[in-house]
């Protein structure tokens, strides 16, 4: 075999392969970019927006924690006061109903804030079939609200059957919004709309906000 000739022939074959081996078709650059943009920038659309929602989420969580602390201190104070009352033979300075209301106030504020924020989020969701794309912030906002929902469910607010049912339904919807993905957005939005309609959620939120002060924790 003539090595020099082989080398020259191989060069020619590889030169031909550069023109014929897996020649790429025209790339769908715009289509690829739309996916890149949705995936790579989904969590950082604006620093301000993210900050605002994190701050709101933290504020609501903080309200709940303060509520829990105040409730426990108040309950302990109630016991001490009752014991003292028994020993001293005098009636308590504040009625149990009044003390319960004092303890419930932080929860009430947190619940009002939560319901208001959730109503805003649900109103911001595009309708099924809309040409508008869902804001990339919505799943992040829903995740924040989902955390608050679970805190509320574990708080005295969750002891109220009506409020518990509402929170559980909102938990389901917020979980759906938190999982929204651009590729399957249309189908997911349909499911969310169905859930909102079937469970009559928006009117129930309005009703809950109106009646919140009457809830017996």
């Amino acid at each position, binding site marked *: 075999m003539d090595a020099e000739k082989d080398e020259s022939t191989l060069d020619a*074959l*590889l030169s031909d*392969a550069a023109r*014929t*081996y897996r*020649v790429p078709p025209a790339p769908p650059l715009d289509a690829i970019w739309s*996916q890149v943009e949705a995936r790579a920038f989904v969590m950082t659309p604006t620093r301000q927006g993210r900050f605002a929602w994190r701050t709101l989420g933290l504020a609501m969580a903080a309200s709940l924690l303060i509520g829990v602390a105040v409730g426990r201190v108040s309950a302990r104070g109630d016991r001490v006061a009752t014991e003292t009352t028994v020993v001293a033979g005098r009636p308590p300075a504040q009625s149990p109903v009044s003390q319960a209301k004092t303890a419930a106030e932080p929860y009430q504020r947190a619940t009002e804030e939560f319901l208001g924020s959730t109503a805003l989020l649900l109103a911001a969701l595009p309708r099924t079939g809309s040409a508008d794309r869902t804001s990339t912030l919505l799943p992040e906002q829903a995740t924040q609200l989902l955390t608050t929902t679970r805190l509320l469910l574990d708080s005295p607010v969750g002891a109220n059957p009506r409020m518990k049912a509402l929170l559980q339904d909102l938990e389901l919807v917020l979980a759906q919004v938190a999982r929204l993905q651009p590729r399957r957005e249309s189908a997911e939005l349909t499911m969310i709309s169905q859930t909102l309609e079937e469970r009559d959620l928006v009117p129930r939120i309005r009703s809950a906000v109106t009646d919140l002060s009457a809830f017996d924790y």
Partner: protein
Amino acid sequence: MPRAAIASSSGEADDERSLIARAVVGDRVAARKLYDAHAPRVHRLTYRFCGDADLAADLTQDVFVLAFRELPKFRGESAFSTWLHRVAVTVSLNAMRKVKRLRERETDLDEARHHEHESGDVDPDLRTRVAAAIDALPEGLRLALVMHTIEGYTHAEVAGALGIAEGTSKARVFEARARLRKSLGDYLEEL
């Protein structure tokens, strides 16, 4: 095919640094400019690696998603394109290792596509045999050969993208050619 021109001129490099800095803080216009500048070559390379149009588009997408997420870690110690091609090679290899069907997808459709671009006087059967011989090369040799000999990257560029020494790139291309000569021996003798 002209040699790949990965290295930018000084002015272009300054512009690119500015685009990178803006893309890091979420400027999508800057990110799009970076994408426009590099996506065609990245797509071309991923297609040469995998031979599947849909997969090449997915890989290109994955490359840029990863690149933009990791962009804050880019220190500028190498050219952006070198760093990006390294990401492209890593993403492509990981994907191809996971998708075993890739080799099976090199079907008649791909061969038909190859033949659309036929030119010169190389026998179609021989062309198919050359393609099969390239595909049969071990991964490291095939990548070096495709990047350098088929796609026109310099050895320095291949080395940067594959994370190997320049001498190793040369050695791999040399070894790949030796194996091709051996596998195509009968055909070469006849020519």
